[in-house]
């Protein structure tokens, strides 16, 4: 998602100057202040919009998940086939038990740094294949728990605050009983005025 309009940074000095010139009288403001006012107003409008929009309006409902007992191989496979960098781990009753991400998986397969490319680099340097323990861990061993989740009736602003404040990329969305109903990423919650939602 993202706004179809332009960003603040695309307002040029000439745009602002010409705008001032279109008002018939003397306008007591510099282009610098005009730009600042515009950016601040935009920021306020974005916040207001994000407070009004609910998480369940922007979330992805079709979520790829694994059970607690899923082996690491299955976790990695699911992530690979849906091209996600993380997924929720569910209990039998549909509640979110934890979240597994690339960061949790890669150290377990010999990559010191949580980066897929570091893994490739290490393999290339050693000129061979990776040595991975045959009795691999399961999803519940790898996951981060308790998971950070958000209610589906929470505002997009709350979701954004959580994502940015905790430095995470995805938030499982749960209903009143804690069952998974969807997932949101940073891209989903960056609702802007003039964008697809307004």
């Amino acid at each position: 998602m993202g706004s179809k309009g332009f960003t603040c940074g695309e307002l040029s000095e000439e745009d602002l100057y010409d705008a001032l010139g279109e008002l018939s009288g003397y306008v007591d403001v510099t282009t610098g202040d005009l730009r600042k006012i515009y950016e601040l107003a935009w920021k306020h409008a974005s916040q207001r919009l994000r407070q009004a929009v609910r998480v369940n309006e922007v979330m992805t409902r079709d979520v790829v998940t694994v059970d607690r007992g899923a082996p690491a191989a299955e976790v990695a496979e699911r992530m690979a086939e849906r091209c996600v960098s993380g997924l929720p781990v569910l209990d039998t009753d549909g509640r979110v038990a934890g979240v597994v991400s690339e960061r949790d998986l890669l150290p377990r397969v010999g990559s010191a740094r949580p980066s897929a490319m570091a893994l490739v680099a290490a393999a290339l340097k050693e000129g061979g294949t990776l040595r991975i323990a045959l009795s691999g861990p399961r999803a519940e061993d790898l996951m981060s728990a308790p998971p950070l989740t958000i209610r589906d009736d929470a505002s997009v602003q709350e979701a954004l605050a959580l994502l940015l404040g905790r430095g995470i990329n995805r938030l499982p969305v749960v209903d009143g009983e804690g069952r998974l109903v969807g997932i949101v990423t940073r891209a989903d919650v960056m609702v802007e005025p003039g964008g697809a939602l307004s």
Partner: protein
Amino acid sequence: MSYFQKMRGTTRSPPRVGAWEVFWSWVGAFAGIGLVGWLEQISIQGAARALLIGSFGATAVLVYGAVRSPLAQPRNVIGGHVLSAVVGVACQQLLHPWPPIAAAAAVATAIALMHLTRTLHPPGGATALIAVIGGPKVHALGFGYALIPVALGAVLLVAVGVLVNNLPRSRRYPEFWV
């Protein structure tokens, strides 16, 4: 930005206004100042009471030359002038043994109070200053200075502004009253 970096300036002045705007600014200022000057001449007390004080020239720049500026609106013109006159007279009466301090206090305090009351009007600083440096004729008026010439002149200039600034289609005045 550091103290010295701030002095370098970061932006530029707004664009020049068109010729039509310049023309009407001239007409409005001529009418406004002309009216106050003429009334001063025909006033009953003869040459005794001044009506056209220096700060009205500054007000004319705003009311006829920068008509959409918040500084030019009636609340600012009348409120700013009257408040500054009162402050100026008070400073003169309290601090007259030390003229530079009276003058400085008058202007500085006028600005502060205009800010607090949202009546900022640059010529108000001049009105406050004139209350101190205007000489014996002004001092003799006491707080009456705030009514005549200050309030009366300010009201007349605003009235002319309302009448003349709205004549061309491209202009309107005021933007707000209070």
